[in-house]
């Protein structure tokens, strides 16, 4: 009975194999969600599938190029309007320069820290995940273009999200609409500080912990407050869309819509970390610093 001929031997039964692999994947999931311990594996697999991702991008790239060719004859018009805009902006720029100098002088008078200008790298959205609930996108620049985790991604209108995973040629952005993503903001009208977090839905953000009597109105603009050191201050984030006062709860239910084209724009800017993280107290060992930075960037 024990000696099954070689021909009929099929290895362990499907049930046993399924049990093994289910256990293995549950183990992986627990390790991944609880301890975040697989960034190296993700990076290597990401590198292996990078050519495939580029290949999948070719049709859209071709389509874009064809569209550009068709658009060529409109270019003269566009150049004219852009030139006009340029002169218009030039004037604003002079004013800005003047204001910047004035600001620097005033800050010097006050003895405040200088505001540093953030460097920006242009990148393109390469790929949106298959899963419609996953509020992440992949960009075509990675650690070879000196992208780091924690950097802020904006478009021409406002904040889009934050880099959370860096591969050599790619990087992943968690959008501000992600359920686990929060941005420190303040109301532009009165400087009220709060934290806006994603609702996990398309085009929706929430202000979760503002009390019922907080001074906030429909249509208020939320800008980054710069607290926490990750987001540079003053970037537009969202506009208040709807305020609901539920008497049974201590907090108002405030819905906002993001200002940036979180799922519209193709080209984005990656801002370098605006200010270096505040210095650690001297007595702490040096090795603790990078860990601290990573943790913070995940939180915000």
């Amino acid at each position, binding site marked *: 009975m024990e000696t099954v001929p070689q021909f009929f031997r099929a290895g362990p039964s499907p*049930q046993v194999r399924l049990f093994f*692999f289910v256990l293995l*994947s549950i183990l992986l999931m627990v390790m991944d969600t609880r301890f975040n311990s697989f960034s190296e594996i993700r990076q290597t697999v*990401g590198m*292996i*599938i990078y050519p495939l991702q580029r290949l999948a*991008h070719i049709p859209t790239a071709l389509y874009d190029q064809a569209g550009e060719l068709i658009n060529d004859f409109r270019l003269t018009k566009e150049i004219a309007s852009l030139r006009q805009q340029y002169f218009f902006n030039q004037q604003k720029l002079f004013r800005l320069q003047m204001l910047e100098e004035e600001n620097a002088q005033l800050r010097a008078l006050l003895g405040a820290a200088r505001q540093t200008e953030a460097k920006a790298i242009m990148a393109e959205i390469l790929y949106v995940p*298959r899963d419609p609930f996953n509020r*992440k996108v992949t960009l075509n620049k990675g650690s070879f273009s000196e992208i780091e985790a924690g950097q802020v991604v904006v478009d021409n209108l406002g904040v889009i999200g934050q880099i959370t995973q860096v591969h050599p040629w790619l990087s992943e952005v968690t959008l501000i609409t992600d359920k686990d993503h929060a941005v420190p903001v303040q109301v532009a009208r009165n400087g009220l500080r709060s934290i806006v977090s994603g609702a996990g839905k398309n085009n929706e953000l929430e202000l979760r912990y503002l009390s019922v009597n907080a001074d906030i109105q429909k249509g208020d603009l939320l800008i980054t407050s710069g607290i926490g050191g990750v987001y540079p201050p003053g970037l537009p984030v969202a506009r208040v869309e709807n305020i609901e006062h539920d008497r049974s709860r201590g907090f108002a239910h405030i819905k906002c819509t993001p200002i940036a084209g979180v799922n519209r724009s193709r080209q984005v800017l990656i801002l370098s970390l605006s200010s270096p993280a505040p210095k650690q107290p001297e007595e702490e060992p040096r090795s603790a610093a990078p860990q601290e930075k990573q943790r913070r960037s995940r939180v915000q």
Partner: protein
Amino acid sequence: MSNDYLGQELPLEAKSSFIFFSLLIALLFNLLPLQEIILLLRPDFVAITLLYWSVNHPQRIGMSLAFIAGLVMDVSNSSILGQHALAYCLITFFGMILHRRLRLFNVFQQAPQILWMLLITQFAVFLTGMLGGTYFLDWYYFLPSVTGALLWPVISFLLGIPQKPKSDPNEL
């Protein structure tokens, strides 16, 4: 129906290089950057391809291959590592235990049964995602299974082409 089954041709043994190639192509389809509605409707091509091979050539495909494909999918989707791996193992399991029964039917009769398998695997993805805390339920989440089942005849026809017997069995 039994006539249907008797009329079927015996397929040739699939080449493992072709299986691998088909999985690569399916992955490529899954990676296509798409817009809103098509993104919601896009079936999971890797799952369907794995199901095709486990139904039609269960000896040529193992659960380990499904597991690896799932891991690759997880990384490219930036979801929890192991989420799709679990789902793909489930779908190969279903294909393996039900392949004898499924092959009694023609591809159009297979499609509704495929729908149930796809729904169960999607539910597994959904469940793990919900436990991980990033998901919430909406009816359109399960639409890709329906489109997947509708595409099943097309996909099984395309994947079956290289296994067609080269010579006419009635030749002699």
